[in-house]
């Protein structure tokens, strides 16, 4: 095919792809807009999670093999020692449980006499954090439980230290957690020893923050923050973090609070997902 006189063809003799380029550009932009507004990416990913499952299996294979190999070569004395240690732990916990049982009964009685609803009982499921911990340059937390185990998007995730995050994607056999330090994460909280309600959000790094805390309200470094439960999504009283820095804003009407979360995804491997709350 001969080029027309108006068409400039220097070193590339191929036909200009400008028309196809514009059409595909428009389709891409439309898709991006649709995804941003309607979140179609999550839906498609959910339906095609079986494509990623083998990859996750391959990534976790060396770890699983080494763990099963370790289990095989553990000596009898090591197992006996571990068993003894766990038995001691059970005794300690049962003593603690007795004390807590008494406190719980007292608490229930007080709540009844003060006519406050009790919503602390929760149903949960245990899960393990698996590889990969990174996806195309972005940090992710994957767990080995998914839709098949009753996991749903939005469910809170906790561990023994406090709040870990929220389920943001659920596949068939695995789910992804949005950590509390993520910029797309917010949670309503209160101070441990007062009734100041506020909303914290992740700063995308290692911390959380409250950007506008009124300066006339008292706040101390080291104050512990817990979930307030007013959103009816998170149960009340889960530890979130500790205030580590208070910075006055330029107009002196607000303070900026920097909060160090109690949990860090690097330092634990087991989590609990809150399935639903059992109201009394």
């Amino acid at each position, binding site marked *: 095919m001969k080029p027309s006189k108006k068409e*400039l*063809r*220097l*070193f*590339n003799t*191929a036909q*200009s*792809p*400008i028309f*196809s*380029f514009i059409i*595909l*550009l428009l*389709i*891409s*932009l*439309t*898709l*991006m807009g*649709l*995804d*941003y507004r309607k979140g*179609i*990416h999550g839906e*498609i*990913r959910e339906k*095609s999670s079986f*494509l*990623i499952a083998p*990859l996750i299996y*391959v*990534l976790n294979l060396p770890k699983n093999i080494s763990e099963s190999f370790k289990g095989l070569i553990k000596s009898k004395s090591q197992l006996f020692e571990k068993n003894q240690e766990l038995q001691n732990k059970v005794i300690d916990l049962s003593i603690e449980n007795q004390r807590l049982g008494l406190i719980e009964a007292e608490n229930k009685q007080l709540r009844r006499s003060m006519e406050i609803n009790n919503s602390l009982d929760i149903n949960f499921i245990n899960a393990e954090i698996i*590889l*990969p*911990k*990174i*996806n*195309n*340059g*972005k*940090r992710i937390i994957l767990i080995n439980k998914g839709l098949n185990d009753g996991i749903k998007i939005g469910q809170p995730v906790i561990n023994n230290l406090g709040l870990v995050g929220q389920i943001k994607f659920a596949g068939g056999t695995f789910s992804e957690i949005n950590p509390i330090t993520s*910029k*797309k994460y917010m949670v309503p909280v209160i101070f441990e020893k007062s009734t100041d309600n506020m909303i914290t959000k992740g700063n*995308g790094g290692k911390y959380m923050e409250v950007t506008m805390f009124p300066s006339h309200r008292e706040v101390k470094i080291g104050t512990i923050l817990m979930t307030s439960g007013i959103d009816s999504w998170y149960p009340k009283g889960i530890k979130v973090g500790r205030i580590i820095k208070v910075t006055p804003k330029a107009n002196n009407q607000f303070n900026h609070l920097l909060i160090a979360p109690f949990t860090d995804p690097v330092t634990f491997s087991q989590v609990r997902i809150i399935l639903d709350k059992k109201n009394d």
Partner: protein
Amino acid sequence: MTKKNTQERHEFPFLFIIILTTLLFSRINIPVINSFQIMPDYFIALFVSLIASRFMNLNLYILFVLGLLVDLLAGELMGQYALILIFIYFINFLLSKYFIFKTPVMLASQHIILATISLIILLISSISYDLSINTNMFIMKWVITCLVCLLYSKLIQFLRNKI
């Protein structure tokens, strides 16, 4: 024509394996790199090398579909990588229309130009709520991505010679 088709058929398994390996790489942490923000963008590096070396003569439509696949497997927004890949193709078309890339230095600069433009598009179309850009981190990411891109280019050249 028959020779060209046979070569394309031979190159297809390599393309499949390279994409799978890249998907695996994109989910493995590099021990030396502590920050996630400076991790290289393996997919940009791969497709810049593929398009610049005209591997399998990938056209706009195939790249668009591959971009959607990358979005599905590793992206955060549907259509983002599809947009980047068609941009890489179009810019490469314009570059090769006005310039000839013959020497290794010229080819390296072609790869670097394409990788830079791709990373800028990725930054602009990202849905992170960053109002300020950490320039140092971005430059580090750019340097590492360009290095990975050149490595991919060498690998593709090697595979081509083998085929």
